[in-house]
């Protein structure tokens, strides 16, 4: 068997039962792994009657057929669950080493169900699978927990939650290898609700590659392309993802002060260039990654990985803060507490606006860098005003009667691109199955970076086609699982051929994209089953009604409605966004026709 290990590990924390099941190979070929396989398994496991924070929810950790093979960036893995933040289907994926190491334990997936009566951690090693007491670890932060459990990048890898997950913050992340995160949508809270503190993996089995000759050629060609692309060979390695700050600001699409503006007058202060000049210690990379966008930064107070672009924006422009040291410290703290930095930053920004309007009793104001760290602490421990912020911006803003001031879609805070200055990005956010997400399709590439070619970011007609293609491609890449930055230098045709070489099953480029389309439609069905409707495919009113006040995108709102209509038709869905029978039959999803009906 090439690529897959052929086994799923199933752990019931209520009963302590541990079982090993064969991987359904037909399912694996249709959904590959990662996000796709996770969504397919979740469909059977967690129905609409299940509260995300109840013991009936499950956590499904999956790798993909590329994970651990040594193909460029094949370090990633995924977690799937029902989101406690949004109530939607959720997957989040992460890099580092843990995914590769988990694959080496001989499993393609791990399903964690039930709830332990007391804190535990799970250890998966060649000596067996064991549920161990974690009462001594409960309450500890991520770095300490990771260290205590013996993190060793190439041999033993730790995944855990911090205080935010223990305290069931709905924006809590699961952290792996110390500072990498499965961040979005609150998977850390699901782990906390199960009294599961950590999962430690040590493996020895390597996935098989069936066509070594073709695989070597694909490694060679992929490396060549990644070297040739200035983005993957120069910009990301030199400045990290924060290289986007000046680029996005220059086109007038950098959300500022809770999306009241689209350019930040202090963008240069929080740019990748400034980060490199003042705070960079060194570059690092995930396993098997030749890009190396990760950086270690240091201030007078902290040293740690990051910050990423989205994080720098969330604690920076979004909060009107230009103190990069404070942003780095907030990032390090947030990672140690185990919280999603995008949602945390954007929730603080929302609280700043609410406070300025007199709707929230707090000292938070735009620009108050000194309040970032204490607010994050308060959120993770649900103390003081933090208790109001711990479950994200939508719950906070709704509580004070202004849900419109939560810059979120389906309850998930929007990332660092203003949909008014990038029309397609708005459609991407509005239709994203896990809520507003920039990783569900690379419209940044098309609308700003010119990858593969630049398109007009203000054009409305035809945008649906781009969004759909990139959503499908992203779902496929998330199912392989590899890093999307690879896709900034290398097209899907390479991934399809690498997959063919590894598995011995011929996947053309179109076949791979079709897998992504199947995953996307299954996720859509999941959300429909949960009660989501067309009305949830929208953007905050501010982005639809308030024009950008100045800069290169001045005067623009997002023209979502015509794009959405075109999108539904092009997806093969009806006018309410429900997949048509013909589309479900085409994708092999017809057995769930009654959900669409």
């Amino acid at each position, binding site marked *: 068997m090439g690529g897959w290990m052929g086994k799923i590990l199933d752990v019931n924390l209520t009963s302590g039962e541990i079982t090993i099941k064969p991987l359904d190979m037909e399912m694996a070929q249709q959904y590959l792994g990662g996000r796709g396989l996770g969504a397919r398994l979740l469909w059977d496991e967690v129905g609409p009657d299940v509260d995300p924070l109840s013991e009936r929810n499950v956590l499904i950790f999956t790798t993909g057929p590329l994970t651990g093979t040594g193909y460029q960036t094949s370090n990633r893995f995924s977690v799937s669950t029902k989101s406690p933040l949004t109530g939607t289907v959720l997957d989040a994926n992460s890099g580092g080493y843990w995914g590769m190491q988990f694959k080496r334990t001989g499993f393609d997936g791990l399903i964690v169900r039930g709830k332990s009566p007391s804190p535990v951690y799970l250890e998966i090693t060649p000596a067996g699978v064991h549920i161990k007491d974690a009462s001594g670890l409960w309450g500890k932060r991520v770095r300490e927990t990771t260290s205590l459990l013996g993190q060793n990048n190439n041999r033993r890898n730790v995944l855990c939650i911090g205080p935010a997950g223990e305290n069931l913050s709905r924006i809590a992340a699961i952290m792996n290898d110390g500072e990498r995160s499965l961040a979005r949508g609150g998977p850390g809270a699901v782990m906390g609700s199960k009294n599961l503190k950590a999962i430690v993996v040590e493996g020895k089995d390597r996935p098989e590659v069936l066509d070594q000759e073709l695989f070597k*050629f694909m490694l060679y060609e992929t490396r060549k392309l990644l070297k040739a692309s200035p983005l993957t060979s120069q910009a990301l390695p030199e400045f990290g993802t924060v290289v986007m700050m000046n680029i996005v600001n220059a086109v007038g699409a950098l959300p500022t002060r809770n999306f009241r503006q689209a350019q930040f007058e202090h963008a240069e202060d929080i740019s990748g260039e400034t980060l490199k000049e003042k705070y960079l210690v060194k570059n690092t990379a995930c396993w098997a990654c030749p890009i190396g966008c990760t950086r270690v930064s240091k201030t007078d107070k902290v040293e740690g990985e990051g910050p990423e672009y989205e994080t720098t924006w969330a604690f920076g422009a979004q909060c009107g803060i230009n103190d990069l040291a404070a942003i780095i410290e907030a990032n390090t703290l947030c990672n140690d507490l185990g919280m999603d930095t995008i949602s945390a930053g954007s929730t603080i920004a929302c609280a700043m606006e609410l406070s300025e309007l007199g709707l929230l009793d707090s000292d938070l104001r735009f620009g108050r860098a000194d309040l970032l760290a204490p607010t994050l602490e308060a959120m993770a421990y649900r103390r003081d005003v933090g208790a109001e912020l711990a479950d994200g911006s939508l719950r906070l803003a709704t509580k004070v009667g202004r849900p419109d001031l939560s810059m979120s879609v389906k309850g998930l805070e929007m990332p660092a691109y203003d949909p008014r200055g990038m029309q397609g990005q708005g459609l991407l956010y509005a239709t994203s199955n896990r809520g507003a997400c920039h990783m569900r399709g690379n419209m940044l590439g098309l609308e700003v970076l010119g990858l593969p*070619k630049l398109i007009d970011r203000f054009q409305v*007609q*035809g945008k649906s086609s781009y969004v759909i*293609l990139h959503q499908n491609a992203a779902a496929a890449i998330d199912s392989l699982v590899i890093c999307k930055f690879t896709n900034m230098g290398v097209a899907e045709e390479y991934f399809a051929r690498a997959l063919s070489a590894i598995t011995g099953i011929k996947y053309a480029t179109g076949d791979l994209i079709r897998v992504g389309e199947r995953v996307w439609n299954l996720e859509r069905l999941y959300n429909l089953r949960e009660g989501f409707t067309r009305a949830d495919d929208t953007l905050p009113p501010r982005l639809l009604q308030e024009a950008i006040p100045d800069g290169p995108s001045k005067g623009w709102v997002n023209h979502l409605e015509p794009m959405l209509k075109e999108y539904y*038709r092009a997806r093969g869905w009806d006018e309410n966004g429900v997949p048509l029978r013909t589309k479900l039959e085409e994708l092999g999803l017809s057995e769930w026709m009654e959900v669409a009906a």
Partner: protein
Amino acid sequence: MIDERIYEQFCEIGRDLYTAGMISSHGGNISIRVGDRVIIKRRGAQLGRLKPHDLIETGLFKNDSGVALASTELLAHRTIYMRTPALAIVHCHPRAAIAFSLSRDEIVPIDNEASYLLKKVPVITEEFASGTPEMANKLADALTAYKIVMLRGHGSFAIGQTLDEAFHWSTTLEESCQIALWAKLINEPFIEYRGMSQGYTRW
């Protein structure tokens, strides 16, 4: 109503195809996918001199009155859109590439640019090389795995996310074939300069 920006894209690529010698005065056709619609060149219009009324919009899955005006290759374009991830198609008649297609089943570039971008271009044969379902199906099959293919003796079909991208593959192929022709004229032993070049034939 077709967005003015889309009309401009068609004009630019159409003009460039003609001036680059990739089509005759009335040859070739280009299209884009817009949701469940297709915008394609009008039948008989000159790509190098497109007017707003030369862009025809019609359904991707369903016929409407637009089909009466659309390019004769509409069926091929539709089939490709339905079966591949393509969002744009450029069909043209690159002369050197057509010449090579007459004698081989695949074109494996020897120059650096095309080796890098295309690796290999399959050549497919169809007796009625225009407007038939057989041709459309063969093209779509090949384009699920390749971004440009040659129809023997007829021309190239390239797909992309934009017209610009599909045009890029088209000119890259033609440039590569012209280089190969010059190399044949020079008629000296080929010195391999590429690593793992044996892999291209397996692409």
